[in-house]
């Protein structure tokens, strides 16, 4: 009974020792992450509006994709 208690204690201590650095690393990583800038900057000069529309910058899809064809060209499998 005594040895069982000691065994459980060792397991708990071991688990705590393993978990502590994981929590520490996660916390450190979260602190390192850049915070979003929610404040408006009043620099005095107004930025010109972008001439790009959403449809210009959105990725375009390929209409006929050779690599998705039944017999794709050899370069599709090249690495």
């Amino acid at each position, binding site marked *: 009974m005594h040895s069982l208690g000691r065994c459980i204690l060792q397991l708990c201590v071991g688990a705590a020792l393993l978990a502590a650095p994981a929590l520490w690393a996660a916390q450190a990583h979260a602190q390192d992450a850049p915070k979003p800038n929610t404040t408006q900057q009043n620099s005095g000069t107004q930025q010109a509006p972008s001439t790009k529309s959403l449809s210009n*910058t959105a990725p375009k899809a*390929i209409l006929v994709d050779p690599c998705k064809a039944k017999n794709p060209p050899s370069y599709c499998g090249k*690495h």
Partner: protein
Amino acid sequence: MALYGYLSAQQSSRVDRTFQFYKDFRAADLQDDVNLLVEKFNAKADEVSKFLANNDEAGLTELEKALLQDAKANAALSRVVVFYDAVGPCVAHSLCDADATVALLKFQAQQMVSAYGAYVVSQQQPQSPFGSGIFIVNGLTAPSKSWPWLPWSARSTN
């Protein structure tokens, strides 16, 4: 514990490095280059379909070459290929994170390989790494389920 911390830091720097590439991709307006190239390719969709139906890879290569006679398109493809020539070796040597690369940079590489892969291959020279990066990124598979701190257990890029 120290090993865990070391591996975590390594993994974190790999992801950061990949994200830096993604930021460079956005900052350099490479998406505009990709869009221009895709639009040019789509304009020839009918011809592409015919070449594919006839398994005419040489014809497809000639079509790509013709599309890239346009200096603007040629310059755009050069910028994209050179960019991926930096990303490819980075991920191939586990200096960048493969899963992050798939999430952030694979789609555009896939499009470029589909549309201009034959031309890029035709421009490659033996003993030169030119044009290999885009194929490395294109060949990456979906995010792995392996332990992220052990990149050598994750997957092969080949």
